């Protein structure tokens, strides 16, 4: 770990680190900072809720500035979800920030009955999705949240892939009257967007053009796609990478346009390939009656093994090399 300018109080060894040092590495978790900016700009109906994860999910910065609008519910996620619904009925715009597996998977029934069924304007930011928790173990991996949430009527489901995307996502949807779930990483993601990108419900962004193949990606796989594009480029394969950040509703037009241009499409996600983003793409292709084949890159339909996150990404082929390998062999 490289925490450089920071050393825990009372320690002398540069190799020592504590939670503060670790959190300093999660630069891309911009939720708290962006919400504080929005509050400063006059959004005085924002409230932030967490379940003993205000520091790891980086929303405490909001709480420090607006303590009357920051509520820690302790390790009681379902109660927090219900309370957010109650707050929304009294005119507040609650934003929940929590690890995705405790929020989306433990809380799915509360999200359904308390937030989505009454169609309340609650924002949920599920962090550390996919296998980002690495060696903390399979119980902390979250490869099923898209599958669970994609079936909830009224819910908008989006995946901002870096800090600027989170900023664009929170700002670009601030007026939306229904619930939104943002699926984000652990905050150590590589930067894809140098500034907040354009953002709309049902939209997508072309990250780089290429005429030989198209990769429809979300989350960490957008950056992996960019790395793959470079690797494939040196072999003469020009790859187009699209950040399909809006998972529900999905950008059908984009998918069908790409399908019309290729006999095979690629989807990529840090999620079980069953029921996830790739499955949503497959539905669009099948319902439109296209003959385009879809190759889904993602987590296999089994429980993930544990290990350091970067090792896991390599193991599951979710880095640039892994993505490039699948595309190269498929186009051969």
């Amino acid at each position, binding site marked *: 770990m490289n925490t450089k300018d920071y050393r825990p109080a009372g320690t002398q060894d540069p190799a020592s680190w504590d939670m503060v040092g670790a959190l300093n590495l999660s630069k891309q978790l911009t939720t708290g900072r962006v919400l504080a900016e929005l509050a400063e700009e006059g959004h005085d109906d924002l*409230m932030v809720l967490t379940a003993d994860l205000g520091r790891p999910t980086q929303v405490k910065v909001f709480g420090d500035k607006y303590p*009357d*609008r920051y*509520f820690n*519910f*302790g390790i*009681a996620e*379902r*109660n*927090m*979800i*219900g*309370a*957010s*619904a*109650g*707050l*929304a*009925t*009294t*005119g*507040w715009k*609650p934003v929940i920030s929590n690890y995705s597996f405790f929020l989306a998977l433990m809380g799915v*029934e*509360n999200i359904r*009955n*308390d937030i989505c*069924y*009454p*169609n309340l304007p609650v924002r949920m930011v599920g962090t550390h999705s996919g296998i980002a928790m690495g060696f903390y173990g399979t119980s902390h991996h979250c490869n099923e949240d898209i599958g669970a949430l994609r079936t909830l009527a009224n819910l908008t489901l989006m995946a901002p892939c870096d800090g600027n995307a989170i900023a664009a996502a929170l700002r670009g949807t601030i007026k939306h009257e229904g619930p939104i779930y943002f699926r984000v990483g652990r905050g150590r993601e590589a930067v894809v967007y140098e500034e907040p990108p354009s953002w709309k419900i049902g939209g997508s962004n072309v990250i780089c053009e290429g005429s030989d193949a198209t990769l429809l990606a979300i989350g960490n796989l957008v950056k992996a796609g960019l790395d793959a594009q470079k690797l494939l480029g040196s072999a003469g394969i020009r790859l187009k990478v699209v950040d399909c950040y809006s998972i529900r509703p999905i950008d059908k037009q984009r998918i069908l346009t790409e399908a019309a241009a290729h006999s095979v499409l690629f989807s990529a996600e840090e999620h079980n390939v069953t029921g996830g983003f790739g499955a949503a793409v497959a539905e669009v292709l099948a319902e439109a009656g296209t003959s385009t084949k879809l190759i889904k890159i993602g987590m296999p339909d089994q429980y993930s093994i544990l290990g350091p996150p970067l090792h896991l990404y390599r193991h599951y082929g979710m880095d640039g090399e892994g993505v490039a390998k699948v595309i190269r062999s498929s186009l051969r």
Partner: protein
Amino acid sequence: MVRRETVRLTDICGSGHYGSAFSIAELLAVLYYQLLHLRPQEPEWMGRDRFTMGKGHAAIGLYPILADLGFFPKSTLDTYTRLGSPLGDHPDMRKVKGVDFSSGSIGHNLSVSAGMALGLKRRQSPARVVCLMGDGEQAEGQVWEAAISAAHYKLDNLVGIVDINKVGSDGQTKEIMDTHPLTDKWRSFGWHVIELEDGHELQQVFNSLNEALNGEQQLPTVVLADTVAGKGVSFMEGTWEWHLGFLGPLDLQQAYAEIAKGLA
């Protein structure tokens, strides 16, 4: 009226939660006709008191009151549970004026109510929030998560009512899962506890709920109401069998007659 209409609406539906609706009849009557601040002609009024049902399956007892107060036409009651009706076995806040929150999943609504109470306090609103729960519902872990958070955030504008009617779907609550002693539990969770000995005696009901809503305590308050499932119809009283059921024509007449006698 609550009991009579419950019988009538269940006759429309073909199945209904008699026991749970009958045990809360007096609690609902005192709340809606004497204590809650509401504006039926302005159902979204932000200053209104809120009422939520953890035990949403007793909504059949609430609908006749909401219609009687003018939240929606009484004729709507006749559509109860028919295809496309706004009135189902469990209440829907988006379809029924006067319903403050949808329910169906037991154990959720004290959390929602705590959120409402927190939101109202932060708005400096004098409005109160009342959440009606069942005694079987006390087995839900989320109830106690909500209880902890309400005490933590000092939600003195939040009132819980536990309808201790002592039966559930599978029989006597004590045999299914004994959640007593409830007084000690709620008190140890930091709540002001009021024990209502007879949840069907109107003066007692009023005194307890009035203290809960208008008392000086600086804590969230729970009213533990001792009630009788199926109260008002002799063959239903105290039975788990009539938690859910349907009355044939002869029994229907007897139920109406006994309910009318009880009102005399």
